[in-house]
């Protein structure tokens, strides 16, 4: 029983980052009908900034938590900035053109891959935990840092939910993702909304990156590793659906945790792929997809 709890806790903590990641992916798709392969790089730049800035700040005399929060905010800002750049100079011209925007995002991916490697070098880094110590939940162990990560993810998802359901921006985003033309007829300023939606998604990726920095191996290539899982999560959940993204992320995390334990990591990775292909047989657009 203790084992099952441990695996469940593991599932939850793995899913935390995947959720944040897929929320951004699905949001962009819902609002702009585009698949942004470069989403992983907004995530990566944030993580990289935190991992480089925080030790520097600590050395300059800042206490650990302050250094982390400051570098985290700067990291998120960096992610949003990069997102802004790609939107302004690229995606803005490709709304609703899925093929064109994907190709463009692929170009950005290669470009950023090379640029990040040149700027940050190939070494792996991490930052020390902000919250030390291990906590025990129902006999299962989880580090304080990861618990924080889970709370932050839940909080962010909930905040996003509130924004989407209660705010004017949120209503506009939802309207646009259901029926773009009808929304425009109602007076929704599409371009502004698309812009806000895109930046919001980049910000989500930035938050994910800042949160993952203390618990993961950060290299310039980190975006690629997460983007595959993120894509799978949104396929399962259905592109454009927020609850779908959460469920999809949980599913991927579940297979990785339980499958990885009982059958080995490589097999689990393989299983995820083939399970999803089989899933598409029954649900071609994912669980709640409106793509």
């Amino acid at each position, binding site marked *: 029983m203790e084992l099952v709890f441990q695996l469940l806790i593991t599932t939850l903590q793995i899913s935390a980052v995947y959720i944040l990641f897929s929320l951004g992916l699905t949001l962009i798709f819902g609002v702009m009908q585009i698949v942004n392969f470069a989403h992983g790089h907004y995530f990566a730049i944030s993580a990289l900034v935190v991992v480089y800035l925080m030790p520097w700040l600590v050395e300059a005399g800042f206490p650990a938590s302050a250094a982390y929060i400051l570098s985290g905010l700067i990291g998120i800002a960096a992610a949003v900035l990069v997102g802004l750049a790609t939107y302004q100079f690229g995606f803005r011209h490709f709304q609703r053109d899925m093929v064109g925007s994907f190709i463009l995002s692929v170009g950005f991916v290669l470009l950023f891959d090379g640029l990040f490697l040149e700027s940050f070098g190939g070494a792996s880094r991490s930052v020390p935990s902000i919250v030390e110590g291990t906590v025990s939940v129902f006999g299962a162990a989880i580090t304080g840092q990861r618990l924080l990560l889970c709370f932050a993810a839940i909080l962010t998802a909930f905040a996003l939910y509130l924004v989407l359901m209660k705010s004017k921006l949120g209503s506009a985003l939802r309207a646009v993702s259901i029926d773009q033309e009808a929304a425009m007829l109602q007076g929704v300023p599409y371009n502004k909304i698309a812009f806000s939606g895109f930046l919001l998604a980049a910000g989500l990726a930035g938050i994910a990156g800042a949160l993952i920095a203390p618990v993961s191996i950060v290299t310039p*290539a980190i975006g690629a590793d997460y983007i595959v899982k993120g894509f799978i999560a949104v396929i399962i959940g259905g592109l454009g659906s927020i609850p779908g993204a959460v469920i999809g992320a949980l599913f991927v995390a579940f297979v990785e945790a339980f499958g990885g334990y009982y059958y080995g990591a*490589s097999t689990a990775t393989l299983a995820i792929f083939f399970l999803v292909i089989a899933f598409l047989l029954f649900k071609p657009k994912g669980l709640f997809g409106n793509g």
Partner: protein
Amino acid sequence: MKNLTNNKMQLLSNLTFSCLLTLGVAAGAVADESSKPIKVGLSVPMSGAAALWGQGADWMCKKASEEIRDSGGVVVDGTTYNYECITYDNKYNAAEGAKVARALLQREGVEFIGGSLGTAPVRALQSLSERMGVLIFTTAWGDQIKGPDYPLTFTQMNTPHEILEPLISYVSEAHPEAESVAILNPNDATGQQTEAVSTKAWGKVGLEVVSSDFYERGTTEYQPIALRLARHDPDVIDLGATPPAEAGAIFKELDVIGWDGVKLVEVGTGADGLTAIGGDSVEGVYMGAAVAFNGPSVTDHQKRVNEEAREDLGESLNTVQIGFYDSLFALKAAMEKSQSIEPKKVAEALPSVTFQSFYGNTARFGGEETYGSPQQMMLPVIVTRIEQGELVELGRINPTE
């Protein structure tokens, strides 16, 4: 009428690309003739996960050629030669490896490969180099890589065959109460080869191998892996060829779930990644392919070079990269002994020369018993351990031949 114009346009378009095609191929075909410097090619990953190794390899090759030049160059038949390093990115796969091989051997006319990294691209390189009579050095493991069928291939670093038995004997002697071991390796060429050798070696010293698993490079979450490793509560956990950063992550997760025991990263190449990610949990980890630069047997020369490397690359040097330094000195020795710069003659001279390796010892080639012919650089196996966050050298096991 429109059809006619369309046709003309198509025709003209076609002629344009035919011209482009010709120009392109001609441009690619122009070879660069240089006789004084001896071009030494490198086929290493310069992008992706293994980028750091490739960057270090290139750095070490250039360092070695610089030092050789400063000490008078390579003197053959009255002429002085210097080495020129040409490094191309093989992206750790066969297709790029083949492309790099062709560019180096056919376009650049390189006759010596100072080092190659990655089993798949090395095999692609080999299928060309052996046919063209080019001498290659490689860090790739695997028995089939060298031998009498591949007379021009030489290995420039210790492989699991050389490292594992001495290392595992050392560790089991230091921990006689250990009875079981769980093994984990990355699902790539180095991991698969390490696993094959290690399971035998553990059996030889009497430990029971309770599990042996593989994980995918690019894994982001290591808790399930750690849980699975610890499920039989082994006394020893052996991470084989797992790269330092990932090993650090795994040990960290093992620490969280409460496992403690003898920790080993057999072909661990460096402490920096381990400590950066693993923090306190990597205390006591044994490694067999790392170099400690603060021990008593470290020369001033080594310290100086490592400091420079650290500044440029961000991490200390490791045995993989050092191989790219040693190969040039081995080449120099063989060229001067055979008084020739022809690959075949140099290859014949290699098994009988000695040269000063970066480790400070006099190195030679051996390995006839294991591989069929003496194509393995005989280097000391350096047993290191992380103590109080620093890499400490516990001992050197010199090659027995």
